[in-house]
């Protein structure tokens, strides 16, 4: 068996719902650390950042599913929904920490969303993801029809781009990490928009 076959057969043994459990435990563990001092002396900011970054990482894993299959033959398809829903779950957690623990005031939440471009952009990314999370079930696919469903789910592309701009924008000074995420995002998107037909010379 090749390495890829080993990976695929191992993945097949893993039911996708394990991802939800892992995500929920991870989110709960971070919250627990925040409560008990494990995230340092400013747990609100730390939790906000940890959830935001985890959300981003799951979004990128989601974007990697197709190129991994096409180019390496690794099949993460059965996990795609769980990956997307987990990503959304962390975005939601990120948003809730921001709104409830960080900003705290309804008027200030609204003011920040409309006045601060990096928050506006993050919010736009979050809004893009809501219809995707809501339709991540078989019933929706059946009702919408596969083509329309697939089209709707292309919203994940603008969502990830918005998320990376969100991060680049909020970073103070010139920082490398958000730029790396932006580059990975653009790289993963580029694998999709490569011309499929060879050009006539």
């Amino acid at each position, binding site marked *: 068996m090749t390495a890829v076959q080993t990976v695929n057969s191992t993945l097949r043994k893993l039911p996708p719902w394990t991802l939800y459990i892992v995500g929920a435990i991870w989110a709960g563990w971070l*919250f627990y650390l*925040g*409560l008990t001092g494990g995230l*340092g*002396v*400013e*747990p*609100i*900011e730390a*939790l906000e950042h940890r959830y935001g970054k985890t959300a981003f990482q799951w979004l990128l894993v989601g974007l990697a599913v197709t190129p991994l299959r096409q180019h390496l033959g690794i099949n993460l398809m059965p996990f795609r929904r769980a990956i997307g829903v987990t990503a959304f779950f962390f975005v939601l957690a990120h948003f809730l920490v921001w709104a409830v*623990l960080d*900003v*705290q*005031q309804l008027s*200030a939440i609204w*003011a*920040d969303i409309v006045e*601060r*471009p*990096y928050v506006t952009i993050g919010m736009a990314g979050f809004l893009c993801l809501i219809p995707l999370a809501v339709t991540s079930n078989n019933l929706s696919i059946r009702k919408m029809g596969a083509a329309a469903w697939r089209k709707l789910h292309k919203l994940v592309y603008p969502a990830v781009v918005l998320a990376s701009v969100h991060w680049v*924008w*909020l970073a*103070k*000074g*010139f*920082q*490398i990490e958000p730029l790396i995420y932006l580059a990975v995002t653009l790289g993963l998107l580029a694998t999709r928009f490569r011309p499929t037909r060879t050009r006539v010379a």
Partner: protein
Amino acid sequence: MARRYKSNLTWDDVTPEHLYLNRRQIMAGSGALIGAGLIGGQARAQEALEPNTWEEITTYNNYYEFGTGKDDPARNAGSLTTSPWSVEIDGLVDNPGTYSFEDIMSEVEIEERIYRFRCVEAWSMVIPWNGFELADLLNRVGVQDGARYVAFQTANRPEEMPGLRVPVLEWPYREGLRLDEAMHPLTIMATGIYGRDIPNQNGAPMRLVVPWKYGFKSIKSIVRITLTEEEPHASWNVANPREYGFYSNVNPNVSHPRWSQASERRIGGGLFARREPTLMFNGYEEEVASLYEGMDLEANF
């Protein structure tokens, strides 16, 4: 000349740390206190503030020369050699030269100053500094007529400061004050916290503390002080003049383009800490507002 600034803090210079930590009603130095003083030996209650713990003050830092994460400085700053240390003092002064840390310390009086510390990122602490008034050092070297500003520079040692490898800002870090701000009795050079030597991550061996300005003005690990006629280069101001003004006085009414400055979060309140309103000039309005009389604080943010 020291002790021009009086707060009615009741502890003496040798209060051990466990007492600091246990005392629930420590008074922050503030204008209200200067004005009110001690009334019949009883401190006024309205300004009761509790200093942050040693752990909070020394593990949550912005010191980009050691990394941009809040915990990076505590992890990485150990590599900074702070002894021997000297400060070059030049520009419009009578006695320019290189002053060793010991030499500077031999002619100043170290005091305890418990100040609010407000970061531009909208978090804050209360810190019991030990230090001396900058005016005493400037008077010693003799400020010449014509000097209107003071420029400061942080150490620039890539081999000891891993963050310098990344051009987050234009290195070395630089800051500046108007001369009257620098001479103000609230402005100190801090050399200690809680009576101990100031840790590297907080700006050892000597850093500026200007309590009515956003924290980034309080430049760390100073190696050079220059008296100038022109407004000096200030790192954040140069990096992004729209977001960081030269003055950067704490002002709840002028928001940073990316976040509000109307409120702040005191470090130490845990996961459910409430935001508190930010005070004009960080609570030092009575002492410093006169420095800016007639100035448009929105234009000169």
